[in-house]
């Protein structure tokens, strides 16, 4: 049987003449002895020419031409995109490089404007002349804010300065190395990292600050002046000192040593504001935000910036209404800070839409507050699924605490919102033909009081 399989495996090689002479002899010998294999060989030997003759007709010349064109066309199509892409890529890269070179050279050669006003609020003068938005500031002049007011301006490259009045500041130096001499008032600076050939200095009567890129506040308090660093680090020089003192984020540096002038209350603490903080006006976040958003939708982001700046000026440098807190946390200040954050975001967005990108970037960076209210901090880093529940619980706790502490009328219940809701439901049910004998039992006594009672029970 094995010999039969071996012989039959060579059936077609034998027919095609691919058999060596010794193999042919073995096959002949096997076929002489095996009638079955002989029958198989005879069957397929006779059928093989006819089987091979059952061949499809060659494709027509037209079909061949079509196939050839198709194949070569597909090969070309696969090759060409690479060339195409390469050429466009090379062209685009060259153009982009050329544009960058031109921009860089222009930026390097073009004189940077020294400073220009961004926003104004209050009575602001420069060299005795009233200022307006967008006005330029030349070195050698003095900017003054009489009374309450605020001016923000860009100095050199990516240095945003906000001067809160009453204040007086003199400008000096160049656009690469501006120097601001603060004679009075409060100066908040947010400045991008300086290049090697750039600098930024603020002088006070008692010293000077040199920075490479940071966010800080310089202000006067009594007869002294201080710098408070919010981000980064500054080098502070006392008058007459050669070696600087490094002031890091969160630190406050008083220029006049204790005893030299009227000492501050405590040098290590955050200094008090220059003047007695005025109480914050009622929050106008909603109103100002609505008006600013409307202006942005109307395509007038400059107006939005102006509105937000105005609202920010009203709530900046004021003391939020102080309410006692059992844990000493800045609970009442929370809505105040939220207001500032919201307006700050709107201001940054409006600056971006108005094309003042550097100011917008600076404003956006200032929004990245390293600290925040505790409930907000507690929410950070939590899984998304747990955020909502935690947030709502925190809000409920806040409401309950505010009610407990402030003794608001809404917390005391009475014929307030719950009563109004009960009357509305009664009227609605009457319209649908259902009579109600009285107020809903669950609502009697006021929903807010019930909620407060439930909170206390928990």
């Amino acid at each position, binding site marked *: 049987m094995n010999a039969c*399989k071996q012989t*039959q*495996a060579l*059936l*077609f*090689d034998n027919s*095609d003449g*691919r058999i060596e002479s010794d193999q042919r002899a073995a096959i002949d010998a096997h076929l002489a002895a095996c009638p079955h294999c002989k029958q198989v060989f005879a*069957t*397929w030997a*006779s*059928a*093989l020419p*006819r*089987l*091979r*003759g*059952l*061949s*499809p*007709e*060659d*494709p027509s*010349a037209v*079909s*061949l*031409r*079509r*196939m*050839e064109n*198709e*194949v*070569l066309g*597909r*090969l070309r199509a*696969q090759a060409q995109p690479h060339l195409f892409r390469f050429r466009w890529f090379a062209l685009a890269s060259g153009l982009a490089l050329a544009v960058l070179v031109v921009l860089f050279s222009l930026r390097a050669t073009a004189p940077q404007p020294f400073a220009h006003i961004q926003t104004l609020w209050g009575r602001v003068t420069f060299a005795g002349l009233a200022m307006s938005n967008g006005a330029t500031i030349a070195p050698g002049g003095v900017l003054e804010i009489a009374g309450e007011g605020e001016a923000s301006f860009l100095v050199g490259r990516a240095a945003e300065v906000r001067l809160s009045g009453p204040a007086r500041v003199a400008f000096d130096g160049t656009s690469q190395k501006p120097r601001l001499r603060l004679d009075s008032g409060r100066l908040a600076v947010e400045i991008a990292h300086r290049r090697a050939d750039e600098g930024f200095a603020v002088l006070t009567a008692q010293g000077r600050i040199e920075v490479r890129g940071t966010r800080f506040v310089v202000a006067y308090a009594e007869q002294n002046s201080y710098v408070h660093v919010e981000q980064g680090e500054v080098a502070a020089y006392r008058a007459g000192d050669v070696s600087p003192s490094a002031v890091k984020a969160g630190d406050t540096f008083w220029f006049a040593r204790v005893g030299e002038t009227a000492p501050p209350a405590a040098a290590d603490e955050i200094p008090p504001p220059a003047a007695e903080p005025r109480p914050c006006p009622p929050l106008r976040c909603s109103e100002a935000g609505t008006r600013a958003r409307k202006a942005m939708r109307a395509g007038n982001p400059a107006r939005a910036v102006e509105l937000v700046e105005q609202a920010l000026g009203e709530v900046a440098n004021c003391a939020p209404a102080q309410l006692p807190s059992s844990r000493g946390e800045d609970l009442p200040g929370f809505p105040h800070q939220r207001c500032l954050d919201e307006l700050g975001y709107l201001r940054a967005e409006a600056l971006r839409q108005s094309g003042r990108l550097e100011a917008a970037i600076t404003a956006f960076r200032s929004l990245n507050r390293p600290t925040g209210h505790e409930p907000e901090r507690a929410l950070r880093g939590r899984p998304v699924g747990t955020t909502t529940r935690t947030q709502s619980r925190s809000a409920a706790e806040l409401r309950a605490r505010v009610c407990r502490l402030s003794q608001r009328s809404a917390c005391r219940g009475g014929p307030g919102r719950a009563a109004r809701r009960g009357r509305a439901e009664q009227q609605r049910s009457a319209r649908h033909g259902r009579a109600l004998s009285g107020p809903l039992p669950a609502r009697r006594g006021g929903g807010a009081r019930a909620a407060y009672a439930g909170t206390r029970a928990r």
Partner: protein
Amino acid sequence: MWTIRDSFVFDLTFAPRQATLLCVHPELESLGGGSEESQTAEYVRRAQNGDAEGYRQLFRLYVRRVHRLVHRLTGPGCDVEDVVQTIFVDAFRALPGFRGESAFFTWLARIAVRTTLRQARTARAHTVPLVDSMDLIEARDSATANSPENASDTRRALARLRDILASLSDKRRAAFVLHVLEGHSLQEVAQMLDARVSAIKVRIHDARGEIERQARRDPFLAHYLQWEPTP
């Protein structure tokens, strides 16, 4: 000196005195003066150097054999020309990797079988033949089919054989077609199908038994192959 060459049918030059003959340009004839192997080697070298003419000549040299192989490997309802085009595109794309370790057609047939079986599987899964393949096939006008009746018989027998081949497994069908119908040796078939020679022998043995059994059940095909039909 114009020479008639059967394998070149494209670069046609109309000769007034030989109006019905297809002629090859002398420049091509100078390239194609040697054997098929030397021609193929030259065209492969030119194609590998990026010469489009090398691709063109390789296509013209092998398209008929590939077309016949694909037709035999696929069942009714398959777009043979589309498969042939795909095979040549795949092969030409892979041509830079061809190092001449085997015959060019062995290398090409390996791609052809792989591509054909892949496309046939897809076609079986996604298409339904609308017309019988008999209507599409124009059988070769061979010595056994030189009359209209014989041509009709040949078309019919070819359709029956194609149906039987289509009923085989891919491996058996490929081995049988390459060895029995196309006439490649067992070693060549083993190379084309990436299998051992012993495995190819088994596949051909099984395919031969299955084809004989089905052909004997078909009185027309059994008669055409001069076999005794099985009742």
